């Protein structure tokens, strides 16, 4: 069965060109970039090139890029560092809809005596900027808001939020794992101090990430014990993956236009067709500014895991904000923070496209989805009453 992969916010296919770029650095050019000899040196050259490519995509300078193992490491490193360099400040601000990589860490900080404020969102997922302005003060060490939400694709006004943080003497970090490569980013003209990105969300392999650290920003490393990354992240460089990330960033820059045109057109066509064909459905985050590739649709009176498994039987890969898929018992914290009613939070499905998504694949989902929802509603004790189809 050929898969129809519409789960690109979970992970992406490694681009063939990216794989070719990294391939020689396993069995042939396996030198350590830190070595003095020519053999390590040629790897060092490629790592430098990769750093330049990542910086270019972010509109940053190469020395502002620290390679890490993943987005989660970048998030952890950024927040911990901020608290260490501003030890007199004991307040942390984040949002209620962050990825667990940020949210869990912030909540753990409460147990260490920090004040943690989680800013809410409105019904379509937009950050409550007034609440944020009221919460920030001269005790705030770090503000961490995601650039774009992984579940709904809703984009936060991080530049505006960063300016407010700066005015209060706090550091500003953004988890941009879902945004990098999908929307243009220019750090040179930004006030954001730190930014996390992850390779496998933009067609590089898993196990590689980066932290952007604005030049001049004080920093305390998470990993110590080596001079790598200018002593900001010790540990032998994952050279092949770094080289792959560089190539992936170069390609992402070249495809940025397509992400916001052809991918967006397919996404819009998918969501419009599903909304037209299926009654009692709503788009989570409709009306807010969203990523061009993501749509999260809530189908009332059905449960997400059942939808996903029926889609999976047909080779269609998507994901859900429902409780049952994760083993937790409540719908996703993102949908709950948005106040999505329980009647449809359990039946929310996320489709996330990529530049590889074809029209034929979108057509297949448009064709298969309505009968799946109808079938489950037919089975549901609520579907019938509420839809009046007895």
């Amino acid at each position, binding site marked *: 069965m050929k898969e129809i992969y519409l789960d690109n916010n979970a992970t992406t296919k490694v681009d063939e060109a990216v794989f070719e770029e990294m391939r020689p650095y396993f069995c042939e050019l396996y030198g350590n970039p830190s070595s003095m000899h020519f053999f390590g040196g040629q790897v060092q050259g490629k790592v430098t090139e990769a750093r330049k490519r990542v910086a270019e995509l972010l509109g940053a300078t190469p020395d502002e890029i620290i390679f890490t193992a993943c987005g989660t490491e970048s998030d952890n490193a950024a927040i911990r560092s901020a608290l260490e360099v501003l030890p007199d400040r004991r307040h942390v601000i984040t949002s209620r809809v962050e990825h667990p990589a940020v949210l869990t860490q912030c909540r753990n900080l409460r147990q260490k005596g920090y004040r943690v404020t989680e800013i809410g969102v409105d019904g379509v997922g937009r950050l409550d900027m007034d609440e944020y302005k009221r919460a920030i003060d001269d005790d705030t060490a770090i503000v961490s808001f995601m650039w774009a939400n992984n579940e709904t694709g809703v984009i936060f006004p991080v530049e505006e939020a960063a300016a407010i943080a700066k005015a209060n003497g706090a550091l500003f970090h953004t988890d941009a794992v879902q945004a990098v490569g999908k929307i243009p980013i220019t750090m040179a003209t930004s006030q954001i101090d730190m930014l996390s990105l992850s390779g496998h969300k933009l067609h590089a392999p898993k196990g590689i990430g980066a932290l952007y650290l604005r030049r001049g920003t004080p920093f305390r490393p998470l990993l110590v014990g080596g001079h790598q990354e200018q002593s900001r992240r010790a540990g032998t460089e994952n050279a092949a993956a770094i080289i792959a990330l560089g190539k992936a960033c170069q390609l992402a820059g070249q495809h940025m236009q397509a992400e916001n045109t052809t991918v967006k057109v397919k996404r819009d066509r998918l969501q419009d067709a599903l909304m037209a064909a299926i009654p009692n459905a709503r788009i989570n985050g409709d009306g807010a500014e969203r990523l061009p590739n993501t749509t999260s649709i809530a189908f009332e009176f059905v*449960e997400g895991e059942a939808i996903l498994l029926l889609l999976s039987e047909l080779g269609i890969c998507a994901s859900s904000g429902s409780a049952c898929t994760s083993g937790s018992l409540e719908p996703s914290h993102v949908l709950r923070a948005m106040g999505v009613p329980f009647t449809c939070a359990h039946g929310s499905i996320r489709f996330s496209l990529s530049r590889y998504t074809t029209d034929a694949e979108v057509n297949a989902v448009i064709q298969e989805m309505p009968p799946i929802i109808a079938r489950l509603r037919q089975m549901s004790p609520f579907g019938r009453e509420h839809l009046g189809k007895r």
Partner: protein
Amino acid sequence: MWDYTPIVKDHFLNPRNVGDIPEADAVGEVGSLACGDALKLYLKLDEKKEKIVDAKFQTFGCASAIASSSALTEMVKGKTLDEALAVSNQDIAEFLGGLPEEKMHCSVMGQEALEVAIFKYRGLEVPEHDAEHDHGHAYPDYEGTLVCKCFGITDTFIKKVIETNKLTTVEQVTHFTKAGGACGGCIPKIKELIAEVLGQQANQPQPKTGKLSNLKKMQLVQEVLERDIRPMLLADGGDLELVDIENDTVQIAFRKACAGCASSGNTAKFVEMKLRELVHDDLRVQEVAA
């Protein structure tokens, strides 16, 4: 991905007996939209009103909820009402070749709907739906005091499930009943209920007052710690160790998450309470740094 058995997959993809029975003799409804799963079970009896001749279901829920409902309808057909009442949630899970533990609450939901249907048919008292709770009441027909406000689960129901499934940790209770799975506010109460059920089950070979030999005392203390205390602490990432018993003073040392935990004083008090309840009234617990 969940590791569902081929039988679960089959009953999910090809569910048996979906629908309603317009002239049903008995109907049982449990769960709610808010809870994320719900089941409405219809039973049709033979002319003598003894045997179940037909069963149908409508389910809102995940794959295992649908499969459990389908299995349940297949299992009860041809059974008398009393035979049907003997079907336990474990029987449903076994019929399906097993369920992931996180999904056991689906089998519990099936058993519950069956019980509610038969109780109602027999005219047994059904309390009013308690509408004040945010998520609705998952098992409105179960009397008792509300423990889990998020999912509307009562103490009577939790104790029953602990007993039938021999559960020993809060995590298991959550997997089987959902209680404690949302805000977590009722976790201390669930711990008490586990202790209560296990305490009732345990034989109490000695009166709680009177003289205990040192050897017997040591044995009993160890038994209670292993059976009633440590599983609970381990479930929360903590642990304790019995250091010594001097006369009536039981010396314990906290380990893992319990060590240095701000509420370890409360935990020590709880241990003392359990030991007094189950071993001897004169026992005292002392926390030592071993």
